[in-house]
């Protein structure tokens, strides 16, 4: 049978994905962000199998600077009561240098990438799932259910989550799992509000009434008709909230509330704070990684928002 095309040129079934990919591709910054994120994920997945143990301690090789840098190290000799100063050069053995305990910076940063990404993805995942369900259900049910859910959201929004974290760390001790859980369980409020306002207008659209007219249950309407329609918003919200979560974990570690048993970027940065005068790279390197990661996610998120927005001219 000859396929006649209806209504002129129509895209095939992969049309939507291609369409959005074409739109994202035109945004070079978003593309760069995406490339960096892919690189980071590859690093986090493969890296730890290649590098040495990031937590290995070797005081003979402490505070070696990165390649092409030189630093001065002073040693005090008790017998001669003399302070000798010698130049130390970066070596290929430790391309990004070592910290004050002689641990390899490269190995630590790669292990840190894995932790920071996991924290970002898991906490955001929890927050987005909670936010989406609360937002959509609130909008769909309306009335008193909407009122209760939204007032609960208001309370959660005003609740100082940092205080809660400090309290939990104080009671249960610093554990990464707790930190991720608390960030996830408190971070859904913004998403819930956005999704609710979007769903409010969707709910009155005729296709929702049409679905009900054809016998769809409430569950079906919510999961089959409402949530797919806010999917683009969910993707954008998730991309833009990951850097916030990564930064929150780093900030917690920086003020000493992080989990000291795992080398997250925040923990490394915090340890470098004390040796800033003798080995600046310990603090600067995780700082640069945090900076680039946050920037990459923000660029990608902005790019996605433009690509998904039918009103933007790309």
């Amino acid at each position, binding site marked *: *049978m000859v*396929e*006649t095309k*209806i*209504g002129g040129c*129509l*895209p*095939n*079934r992969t*049309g*939507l994905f291609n369409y959005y990919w074409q739109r994202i591709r035109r945004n070079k910054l978003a593309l760069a962000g995406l490339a960096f994120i892919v690189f980071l994920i590859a690093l986090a997945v493969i890296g730890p199998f290649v590098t040495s143990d990031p937590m290995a301690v070797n005081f003979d090789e402490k505070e070696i600077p990165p390649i092409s840098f030189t630093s001065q190290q002073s040693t005090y000799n008790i017998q001669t009561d003399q302070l000798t100063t010698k130049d130390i050069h970066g070596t290929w053995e430790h391309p990004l240098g070592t910290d004050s305990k002689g641990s390899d910076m490269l190995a630590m940063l790669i292990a840190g990438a894995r932790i920071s990404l996991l924290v970002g993805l898991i906490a955001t995942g929890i927050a987005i799932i909670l936010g989406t369900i609360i937002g959509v259900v609130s909008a769909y049910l*309306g*009335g008193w259910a909407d009122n209760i859910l939204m007032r609960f959201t208001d309370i959660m929004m005003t609740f100082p989550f940092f205080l809660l974290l400090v309290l939990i760390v104080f009671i249960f001790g610093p554990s990464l799992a707790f930190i991720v859980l608390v960030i996830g369980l408190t971070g859904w409020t913004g998403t819930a509000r956005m999704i609710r306002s979007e769903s409010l207008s969707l709910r*009155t*659209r*005729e*296709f929702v*009434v*049409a*679905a*009900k*007219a*054809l*016998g*769809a*249950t409430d569950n*079906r309407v919510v999961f*089959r*008709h409402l949530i*797919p*329609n806010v*999917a683009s918003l969910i993707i954008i919200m998730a991309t833009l909230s990951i850097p916030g979560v990564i930064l929150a974990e780093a900030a917690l570690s920086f003020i000493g509330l992080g989990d000291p048993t795992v080398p997250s970027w925040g923990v490394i940065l915090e340890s470098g704070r004390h040796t800033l005068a003798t080995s600046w790279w310990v603090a600067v390197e995780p700082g640069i990684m945090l900076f680039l990661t946050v920037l990459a996610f923000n660029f990608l998120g902005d790019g996605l928002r433009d690509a998904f927005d039918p009103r933007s001219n790309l």
Partner: protein
Amino acid sequence: MIVDVKGLKTHFFTHRGTVKAVDGVDFELRQGECLCLVGESGCGKTVTALSVLRLFDSPPGKIVGGQIRYNDLDLARCPIKQLRQIRGKDIAIVFQEAQSALNPVLTIGDQITEQIKVHLPLNNEQSRDRAKTLLSDMGIPTPETVMHYYPHQLSGGMKQRVLIAMSLSCDPKILIADEPTTAVDVTIKAQILDIFRELKTKRQMSTIFITHDLAVVSEIGDRAVVMYGGKDVETAPVSELIGNPKHPYTEGLIDCLPDMSKSGDRLASIPGTTPNPLELPEGCSFHPRCSKAMGICSHVEPSKTKISDGHFVCCHLYT
């Protein structure tokens, strides 16, 4: 008689007051006939149709009186679970705007098969086959291809056909069509009316057809209910209604139709607009616009008067 609506009252309780969108409507739908609900915008015809399946938003909407008999059930009161079994399976609705009545993020195939699987014990492949048959029945040339399209990739007429195919997917006994010809152009309109005519002759479908267009009524309707201000002001077989209208409002509507044989004159119109549903006039709600209004009209609500078999009117002129 397959559906019997008696004294149906659907009110909306808003913070600005009670909107009596439907305020005492009686009609019956007989097996295999096309019953038209006619009236201006805001006269309550859509709410009447939505009330049959209780599809209006609740709150604020509520059926406060009357009954909707279908088989042994009162649809105005039966539990929602039972109603869900009837929605789509026994009684289906075709909406006015095909563009907004289709979910923009699901393919046509997904939307139809999903619908089929809710009510019929068919697996994926069987329901896809059924969907294809339905689409080609509706005159869509390449159903296999159209199944993979998203709604925005189809033209308006195509979407309307998809929508009708979707409502027919579970072989309903009754079809409610809410102005299916209003948002499309004339050629599509003719094609869609053909589809409804065919449904009547081939499947003996009982249809409630909502429209504001008396021309459409005269083309496909068997009987018609004229609505004004949430009430049914005149009920009659279509030929009787067009040829021998009794209610001044019906007369007015017929006068408004353009007549090709009389050119040059200005088109007649009914003075005024539909009343604010929050403050319906006392007595007969049409009296402020009625050319034949009498003293009694402004304070006594007219009751239903029988003109002939099957022809009823609510007007003081005939009591």
